[in-house]
């Protein structure tokens, strides 16, 4: 029922851009951008807008601030990596699968309904630039 409802939400149309990987993964810095609405530093208020927050790579004291009750939360309570695989990326960097892990990952609130004008023109480009400035090559997006 929830999947059906989500799949019927209209999506804005974008021209599909492509950036080509120019070096092996073993030389790439990787960042996570989650739409699970994760926060840290004790900021636990529910969140319902198009802003984002920064999650330092070494932070694990994360809180789930997503407004939606419609997904399983027990898995995330048990193991953050089930939606935010920071430990797995650290391991992949340590064994040389990837070149490194971003200094900071980013968190947005998913399941937004609206015109996405703030994300499109303001917070989205600003977030991307923040990762580029950190030398990030590859971004993995995780929902919840």
């Amino acid at each position, binding site marked *: *029922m*929830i*999947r059906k*409802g*989500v*799949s019927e*939400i209209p*999506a804005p149309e*974008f*021209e*599909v*851009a*492509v*950036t080509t*990987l120019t070096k092996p993964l073993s030389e*790439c810095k*990787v960042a996570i*951008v989650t*739409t699970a609405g994760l926060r840290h530093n004790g900021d*636990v*208020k*529910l969140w319902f807008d198009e802003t984002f927050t920064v999650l330092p790579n070494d932070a*694990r004291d994360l*809180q789930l*601030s997503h*407004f*939606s*009750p419609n997904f*399983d*939360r*027990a*898995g*995330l*309570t*048990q193991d953050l*990596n*089930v*939606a935010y*695989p920071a430990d*797995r*990326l650290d*391991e*992949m960097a340590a064994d040389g*699968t990837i070149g490194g892990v971003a200094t900071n990952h980013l968190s*947005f609130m998913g399941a937004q309904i609206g015109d*996405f004008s703030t*994300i*499109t023109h303001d917070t*989205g*480009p600003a977030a*991307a630039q923040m990762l*580029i400035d950190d030398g990030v*090559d*590859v*971004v*993995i*997006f*995780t*929902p*919840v």
Partner: protein
Amino acid sequence: MSVLSHIFEAAGLVTVGISIVRGQAETARPPRMLHCEFPLGRPLGKPDDAEFQRRVLTAMLELTSRDDVPVLVDFPEVIEEEGDAPAACPLPPRIDSDLHPALDELNGLRGAYDRNVSAVGRTLLGRVAGPDELGGLIEQLIRIDEENATLADLGWDAMHAISVGQDLRAYYEEAGMQLATNTGARQLLTWFYESTQTGNLLRRVRDKLKETGEDQMASTYLIPGTQS
């Protein structure tokens, strides 16, 4: 997430995402997506299974070499939701018959909640209350249920009401993790809303909010839409 993928890729980053609702990925056409038929809330599939999570990540990273976008590939392993079968989780016996059953139940689960916090090292509780304040929140919900109080009477807005619901759910689910033998996807959720006094109290409050039409957002998001 699809919108962000388009923006980040256009900015010069190579992106790949996990899709958990295939129809949405087909409509939004982000550059590279790995569709994972996993329960909502578990996009990497299995908690405490590093090997499985790593297989998902490896499949994602393999897609980064593709520039024939949009690319939507199915991860070969499927994990079914298990929410139809609630967690087999014992409820505490009635201890203080002078208390409302939800308050008595809340008190009876405190030991299990505390054990889980010690075992896991963190809690999702704390949006508007810690464990010691939850009883006061339940007393307010009882006013809606039994005295037809409104959210305005309690001084609550929609976000506060939703936060109360999430804090109570977190407390129960985390206590349940110490008590249940099966904690698959959505099983603790189903147990909480269908088997416990507080879960059923929240369901009745949601129904009251729907009936009165006081706040559509609160009635929509107080409990999962799958709970009739």
